[in-house]
Each structure stands twice: as structure tokens, then as C-alpha cells.
């Protein structure tokens, strides 16, 4: 009997299958109840969903919010209500404004300053590594880590639990709010994490899993940066991004994965119009018959040594020398005439220094 039911269900599922569009289509979020005069008149778009901002007097009574404000050394012009809004991801949470706009603003600011920093500091970085470095500095995982290090807590207790533990209602305004009221009441099994529908669909789409909490922390960090821009302006935001994000150590030298380094080096030398051929020469060795032979090889172009590598076999030393030559080219970082870092285009009195990369080589 069971088998026959299972058989019956299959063709039904197949019939329901909808062909998936391969491209992105902008669609209005119907839950925002957007009204407009004409479809192309974007200025007339108004969301009619009822939202209000948290009064400053209420926000200032939330100890975690005030503590977060001073922990991040935010200027006094940065209102606590905006900070609280930056921590709210729920669209329908007591009618409070959420961080959607602040998140977008923060994301744009972040991607500008991170890209500017990388392009000026490492002008010769190949495109895949550049993208990896951007992810390394402002990817979801990194922003989650930053959010955690700022001591942001998640509001996970339901209204009933808050009432029973006599928790102050103001406390939640200083916490990250992304769990909906219904899922707070769900029974949770310790050690078991149930995927939400969004998470399952993202898993199917690009085969990568980002937990809702990680995305929420990242969004809060971006929103706090967006809020800083709205209250304190661009200079303060730039300084904040430099202090909190660009000050992190970027392990660029661990991010390269070469498939054919020797060929790449030869192509690169061609592209740079080096007339002499690339040669790998043995610089020193401990002796072939020694217990643990070690070879030092160098990648040369004429009399110029491009790179050097140590290996326990000739081929290892050769590959290491070639990879070192490539790395020292790609990771070149210009400095200004007085030995300081090169100025960024967003700096005052900016004058172009340094170099512009000539682009990647093709193999």
C-alpha cells in the first residue's frame, strides 16, 4: 500500500515543477505595501507599512545599548535609537523600523573603502585574489566575527519568558533581533540546528551554507557603519572602517593557489617585455648524497634574480623559487616618496602616486 502511494506521488511532483529563471528580476516586496503614482517614477514610491523609530528616551534606558555605544566609541551625535535600529532585522517587530536601509548604506560604504584600500595598496593583485581579499575583510564570516567581538548579544527569549523572568522590556533594544516571535517558542534540542527555509534554499542555490545568525551579525555590523555615516559623516565613517576592518591582518600570502606557476611566470615576463629568458638556476646545495639534501634554486631573468626557493628536491626548490617570484610581483605594495603609505583617492589633497596594475596574465 505504501509503495503504491509513493509511486503515485512522483508524477504529481514532476508536474508541479516550475522552470527556474537564470537571471535576477527586481521585484517589489509586497509586504511593504509600496504605493506609487507611476511605475517608472521612482520618487513617488512610498512604503505604507506602519513603522516608527524608537524614541531616544526609551533607547537611553537600555543598558546594553548604551554600553555598546560607548564600547565602540561612537560620537555623541550617533543617536541610540539609530544604533537600536541597526540591531533590528525583524520587519514586523512592534512596528519598529528595521535596518534594511542602513545595511545597504553600510555595505556600499564598506565595499568602496575596502576596494580602494586593496587597489591602492596591492595594485598588482590578480582579480580572483582581490575578490578573495575583499571577502576576507568584509565577507559575512568576518563581519560576524567583528559583531561578536563588539559584544552584541542575540535576543532569543520570547515575550512570555521575558515576563516570567521579570526582564526589563528595554533590554531587548540593545540586542540583535532577528529571531521571529514564533520561532522563539519553538522547542530547541541542544546540539541540533534546524535549518530555516531561507537557509535550505541558499544551500540549494549556491551550495554554501550561511547560518541566519551569521548573516544577522554581519547585517548589524554593516548597519552600524551605515548609521555612523548618517550621523557623523564620511570622514568619521572612513576612520571607523580603517580602525575596525582595514586594521585586520590580511593573510594574502596564504591565499594564492597556482596551477602552473612556471608557465605563469614566463607569460608574466613576456607581458612585462623582459627580453632575457626566464631561467631557474641552482644557487646552493648541501650535496646530493647528504642525509637530508637541501637545494636553493633561484628564478632568474638575465642577471636579475626574481625569486628564490629552498626545497628538499630539485623540483621543489624550483617550484618554490618560481612561486616566490610571482608572489613578490603580485604582492608589491607602493610607498610614497617620504616612506609613508600611498594616499588614497578619498584622502584630502590626493595626488596620484604608486602604480596601476597591468592586469592578469592568461595561460
Amino acid at each position, binding site marked *: 500500500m505504501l509503495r503504491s502511494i509513493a509511486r503515485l506521488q512522483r508524477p504529481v511532483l514532476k508536474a508541479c515543477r516550475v522552470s527556474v529563471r537564470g537571471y535576477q528580476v527586481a521585484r517589489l516586496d509586497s509586504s511593504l505595501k509600496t504605493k506609487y503614482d507611476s511605475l517608472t517614477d521612482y520618487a513617488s514610491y512610498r512604503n505604507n507599512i506602519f513603522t516608527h523609530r524608537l524614541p531616544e528616551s526609551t533607547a537611553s534606558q537600555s543598558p546594553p545599548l548604551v554600553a555598546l555605544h560607548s564600547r565602540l566609541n561612537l560620537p555623541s551625535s550617533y543617536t541610540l535609537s539609530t544604533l537600536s535600529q541597526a540591531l533590528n532585522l525583524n520587519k514586523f517587530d512592534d512596528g519598529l523600523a528595521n535596518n534594511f536601509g542602513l545595511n545597504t548604506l553600510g555595505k556600499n560604504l564598506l565595499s568602496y573603502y575596502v576596494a580602494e584600500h586593496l587597489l591602492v595598496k596591492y595594485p598588482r593583485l590578480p582579480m*580572483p585574489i582581490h575578490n578573495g581579499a575583499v571577502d576576507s575583510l568584509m565577507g559575512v564570516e568576518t563581519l560576524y566575527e567583528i559583531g561578536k*567581538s563588539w559584544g552584541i548579544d542575540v535576543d532569543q527569549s520570547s515575550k512570555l519568558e521575558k515576563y516570567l523572568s521579570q526582564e526589563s522590556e528595554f533590554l531587548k533594544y540593545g540586542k540583535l533581533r532577528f529571531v521571529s516571535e514564533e520561532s522563539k517558542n519553538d522547542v530547541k534540542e541542544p546540539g541540533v540546528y534546524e535549518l530555516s527555509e531561507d537557509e535550505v534554499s541558499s544551500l540549494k542555490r549556491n551550495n554554501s551554507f550561511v547560518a541566519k545568525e551569521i548573516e544577522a551579525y554581519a547585517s548589524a555590523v554593516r548597519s552600524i557603519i551605515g548609521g555612523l555615516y548618517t550621523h557623523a559623516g564620511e570622514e568619521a565613517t572612513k576612520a571607523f572602517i580603517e580602525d575596525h576592518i582595514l586594521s585586520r591582518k590580511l593573510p594574502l600570502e596564504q591565499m594564492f593557489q597556482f596551477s602552473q606557476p612556471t608557465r605563469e611566470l614566463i607569460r608574466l615576463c613576456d607581458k612585462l617585455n623582459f627580453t632575457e629568458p626566464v631561467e631557474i638556476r641552482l644557487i646552493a646545495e648541501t650535496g646530493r648524497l647528504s642525509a637530508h639534501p637541501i637545494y636553493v634554486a633561484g628564478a632568474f631573468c638575465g642577471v636579475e634574480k626574481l625569486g628564490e626557493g629552498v626545497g628538499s628536491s630539485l623540483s621543489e626548490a624550483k617550484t618554490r623559487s618560481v612561486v616566490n617570484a610571482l608572489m613578490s610581483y603580485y604582492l608589491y605594495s607602493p610607498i610614497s616618496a617620504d616612506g609613508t603609505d600611498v594616499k588614497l583617492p578619498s584622502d584630502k589633497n590626493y595626488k596620484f602616486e604608486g602604480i596601476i596594475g597591468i592586469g592578469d596574465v592568461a595561460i
Partner: protein
Amino acid sequence: MPVKAIAKSSIARNGVGAYVVPCHKISVQYCNWGGSSTGLRELLKNGQLDNIASKKKGIFFDIFKRTGHPKLTFHYNNDKAQEVEVANLNAKEIEQKIQEYSQRSGAPLFKHNHKVLSINDSIRGIWSPMHTPKSHRHQI
């Protein structure tokens, strides 16, 4: 594609650029009846804890009453919480405990036996016997 990227997360360096206090919350538990809470009650009554809290603006002090011995719980940003028993301690000693634990990073203490603790490569490089001139090399 000649070169592929290996995904790596950047490493936090708290204090390079901005410094964020690792301890973000201190839970202070006291009992209104027990004798072991006398010191903590005094600290709460004479407004000394208010002074400490106003000096440490980045830390959220959560004060609650519960029966049993008094306890301080320090919450750090590496998801660790450190409980400190303050039973029968006087106000001064409790204040010292708060000062001490609020300045910690939350990581377990370890004995540091090395001259340098760094995540950066040595700027001078490592000495290599292969790079000395041939005349200076060790002869067997």
C-alpha cells in the same frame, strides 16, 4: 584561470586601529539575607558600584538578587563566561575582583616563556647556512 584564491578570513588585531573591551557584561548576583553577601551589599548600598560602572561605560552591569552565595559572572566576547565567587569578601576585595576580571580577554591564562609573541613574520628573516659565501661555509 592562472591563479585561484584560497578563502581565508582576516585576523582580528584588537588594539591595532580600534580597541574594544573584551569584557562586555558583568552579572552581579547578591543575596539580601545571607551573611556572605555583606560586602557586596555594602558595595551596592554606598554607591561604589555606580562609580565603577560609570568609569567602565563599555560594560553592561546586570545586577540581580538571588538566594545563595554572591557571585560575579564576567561575559567576554569570545563567548566565554567566567564565574567568580565573592562570598565573605569585603567591598574593597570585590572591587579588586571586578577590576581584575573586567580587564581580561576571556582567554585562559598561560605562562608566556618566549621573548616575542607575534602573528607576523620575522622582518629580518631566518639565518641560512646556504647563503654564506663559499669560503665561509663549514667544511667537513
